[in-house]
């Protein structure tokens, strides 16, 4: 099915089931687990209608067709004013990475992911390793049948609700930096693994800390080979910085429509519309590039920077309608405001992205200060 025809079938289905889909209309949340459970039946309905399988490989539980079909689905769900079930977010970041580096794991888990039964997270950051990811200290020590992992991870989105975690650990010595890292696929129910939600300034518990105490990971759960963790992480971050942004642009355009109805100021609306449009066109390029099987490259940093700007200006437009931070008793606007600001921090801080653009897109001489 081509994207235009798929779009028609999705919009027709959404419109035809509007009454039953009412519980899934977009609304802010504070408790992540409740948010996930509220939307799980929505994911399942989309699966039963055949939509979530579109654009994923037919030999792995999908129904085939261009990966662009996935982009169409997210665009239409968000444009129609619904929340996007949580499983779709990491599906666009982690699953393509699994297909590229551990296809056996992708094939094993994809059916459950497409049903909305399996949630994922990624364990990269540590208390001492943020932008300098190559300094991480969580250790994976070889064992008879794989590795034993010990350490602490933090700022894990979905951390407290996920079933599986894609985790970056050190297999080389301390001085090995980014060369001594290995990516592992870890069952979140493993003995020795525990999580603790972090109370965020936006009122949610969206992020969590992850503690690993001698957690066993079988050898077949190495993603991309021992010592190849850095390459896998960089590959994954391209999706997080560009194709995932496609979901956000749809959300932001829908936000602007709401802001307009609430009486947002024209100058703020116009600015945010331009930013969202730039994000839409850039992330569409990323979708087209990956759908054609080509690497994304340093252009993903450009998209990530536009994403940060677009998130901010959309919230600025929303808030220009009045003074809702002060007058919104539930604090939802303030929550969204904090979330928008965090976009220039997660997935690689804006300063890192600018360095990448300066090095790899502009070809400027490298500096140290």
């Amino acid at each position, binding site marked *: 099915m081509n*994207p235009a025809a798929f779009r028609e079938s999705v919009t027709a289905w959404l419109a035809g089931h509007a009454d039953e889909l009412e519980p899934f209309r977009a609304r802010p949340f504070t408790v992540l687990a409740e948010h996930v459970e509220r939307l799980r039946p929505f994911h399942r309905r989309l699966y039963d209608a055949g939509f979530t399988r579109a654009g994923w490989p037919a030999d792995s539980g999908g129904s085939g067709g261009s990966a662009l079909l996935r982009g*169409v689905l997210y665009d*239409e769900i968000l444009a129609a004013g619904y929340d996007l079930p949580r499983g779709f977010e990491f599906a666009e970041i982690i699953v393509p990475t699994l297909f590229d580096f551990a296809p056996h794991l992708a094939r094993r888990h994809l059916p459950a992911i497409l049903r909305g039964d399996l949630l994922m997270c990624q364990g990269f950051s540590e208390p001492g390793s943020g932008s300098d990811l190559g300094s991480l200290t969580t250790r994976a020590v070889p064992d008879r049948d794989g590795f034993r992992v010990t350490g602490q991870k933090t700022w894990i989105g979905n951390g407290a609700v996920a079933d599986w975690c894609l985790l970056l650990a050190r297999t080389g010595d301390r001085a090995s930096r980014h060369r001594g890292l290995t990516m592992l696929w870890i069952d979140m129910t493993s003995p020795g693994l525990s999580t603790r939600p972090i109370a965020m300034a936006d009122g949610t518990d969206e992020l969590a800390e992850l503690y690993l105490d001698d957690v066993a990971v079988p050898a077949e759960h190495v993603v991309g080979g021992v010592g190849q963790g850095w390459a896998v992480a960089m590959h994954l971050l391209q999706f997080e910085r560009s194709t995932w942004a496609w979901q956000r642009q749809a959300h932001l355009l829908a936000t*602007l429509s709401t802001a307009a109805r609430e009486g947002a100021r024209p*100058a703020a609306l116009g600015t945010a*519309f*331009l930013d969202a*449009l730039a994000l839409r066109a850039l992330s569409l390029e990323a979708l087209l590039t990956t759908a054609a099987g080509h690497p994304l490259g340093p252009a993903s940093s450009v998209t990530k920077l536009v994403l940060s700007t677009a998130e901010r200006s959309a919230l600025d437009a929303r808030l220009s309608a009045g003074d809702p931070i002060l007058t919104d008793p539930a604090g939802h606007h303030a929550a969204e405001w904090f979330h928008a600001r965090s976009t220039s921090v997660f997935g690689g801080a804006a300063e890192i992205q600018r*360095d990448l653009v300066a090095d790899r897109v502009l070809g400027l001489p490298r500096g*140290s200060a």
Partner: protein
Amino acid sequence: MTAAAAVRDTARGLLADEELADLRRELVELGFGELVAEDPREAIALWFTEQGRAGRITGALDLLVDDAGADPVLYPLCADRGVVLDPPPTLTRVHVPGVGRAEVGQVRPAGGFARELPVALVEPRADLPDLAEPLLSRLRTALAWELIGAAERIAELTVEYVGLREQFGSPIGTRQAVRHRLADVRVALEGARVVAARTPLDDSVLAAAAKALAGRAALLACDWALQFHGAIGFTREHRLPHHVRQVRFLDGLLGSAATLTTQLGTRIAAEPAVTGAVRDVLGPAAEALP
């Protein structure tokens, strides 16, 4: 070599030839009209990018206007960022129907216009006197590409310069303060380019957005180019001031970035569904796939 690449090379050759005084005639001989008739989006993108890079007066906009068969009486010029034409036009204050009192005058040939241009200087963020569609959107798209070409060239000049210019023992382009701002220029430029590239022919919302994004990117490129070139960038000997004048004029013509941004916002405020309607023209479903 693809057909587009061949046309681009021809365009570059023409624009690089300083001996050619009448580029409008050259364009006619090149078959610009036929190229536009055949594939207007591609032809406009290609020619106006090159023209913007060269910063020359060509008459290509004259040809687009003539093609539409209706020469507007007045072209709105927004002076909200200050248009720095050299020499400045002589303006007269008159009453313009539909606009009220306005400063009108003739602008010497500039950018895509090889003829003297009748302009009405309009207040920042004012309603613009209407040019008939689809001509307005087509001209805005062409101006967007011309701004993108100019900004590309300005950014290239700056990247090249900061890589060579040494102070304190190393190129100034090794300093994060410089690198990050030039990264921001590139990011703004990429956003403008991808939106312009996916703007359907004569779509009023996207053409206005493309011109606003291009103007925004080009003005940012000018600001940092002037800063990072240091004193040399303010001399007549350097080509940068010429590009800066070019950008400020092109941005003002038919709606500056600031004016168009507010106008788009006003449009969305009146019609919130505009943001969702973008899906019809820019998205996977609107792609012509192999």
